[in-house]
């Protein structure tokens, strides 16, 4: 199986205001949701049963929160490389993500600092419905990155 080319990101590569390369989820299909529910064992019906979701007054089946949380994490881990560490991830679920829509997971660097002997970067991250432009989640990520230079201990 081929896989993506994951590069190592360094603290020196980071500038405040810099966007994280977005993660596009072209069509979040019912099949994807069923796969996720099978992989996690969370079988709540509003995520896969259209008629049931409609009976709750929803416009259609909705994405599981943990799936959106997983995509937010993936945005970061694809970017930082194996030597970086996702230390904190927050998601506020602000709206409904509808199955079948196209989404984009995106983020921006908001702060970087050196403390406790480590290099830290804070980013705003979120999950946007491309069709409606609505922000389905808003959140933040805190990451630790290696430096290109050895720092004094």
């Amino acid at each position, binding site marked *: 199986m081929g896989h993506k080319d994951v590069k190592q990101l360094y603290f020196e590569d980071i500038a405040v205001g810099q966007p994280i390369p977005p993660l596009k989820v072209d069509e979040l299909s019912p099949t994807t949701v069923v796969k996720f529910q099978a992989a996690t064992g969370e079988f709540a019906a509003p995520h896969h049963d259209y008629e049931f979701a409609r009976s709750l007054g929803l416009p259609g089946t909705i994405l599981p929160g943990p799936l959106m949380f997983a995509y937010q994490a*993936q945005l970061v881990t694809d970017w930082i490389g194996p030597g970086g560490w996702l230390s904190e991830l927050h998601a506020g679920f602000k709206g409904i993500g509808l199955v079948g829509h196209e989404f984009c997971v995106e983020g921006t660097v908001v702060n970087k600092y050196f403390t406790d002997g480590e290099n830290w970067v804070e980013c705003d991250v979120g999950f946007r419905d491309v069709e409606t432009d609505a922000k389905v989640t808003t959140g933040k990520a805190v990451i630790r990155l290696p430096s290109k230079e050895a720092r004094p201990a």
Partner: protein
Amino acid sequence: MEEKAELLTEEVTQLIGTETKGVTTLPIQVTDIVRYCEATGNDNPLYTDSEYAAGTPYKGIIAPPTFYQAAFCLVPGTFKPVPRGANIEDIAQLAEKLPVKHALDTKQETRFMCPVLPGDTLTRRGKITAITEKQTKVGRGLFCTIENAITNQKGELVCTEVQEYFFY
């Protein structure tokens, strides 16, 4: 609209501060991790390619950060649900007695301390830290906050999380 009932009853309030039962998974399998990655379209080789992962600081495959959530839903490698302890299900059962029908995820915050590795068994312990009643655009309901700590078989803290749900 019917008359609004008082949702935050004494019975509900008494849940605040209660600890949840510890829940422990079976050992995590590589196949559980790969299946999770396949489901989320995650083709990062750190999680799926043992040859590549051997050359990283971890010397082998690790699970993606959010994988731990999946570990507490199903017994790894099976379709048998892991008993969830006393947290969200008890509250959901209680919510069934109240004029509320639905639950929404409203917030998830996780701090990650160390990776989940194949062969790990994870234990989750937590407590209900807050329940508040509020009127929202979808209706009147209860916001419930649960804080969990997840440790591995060595007693290392893997992550801590704060989850908030809205029952309405």
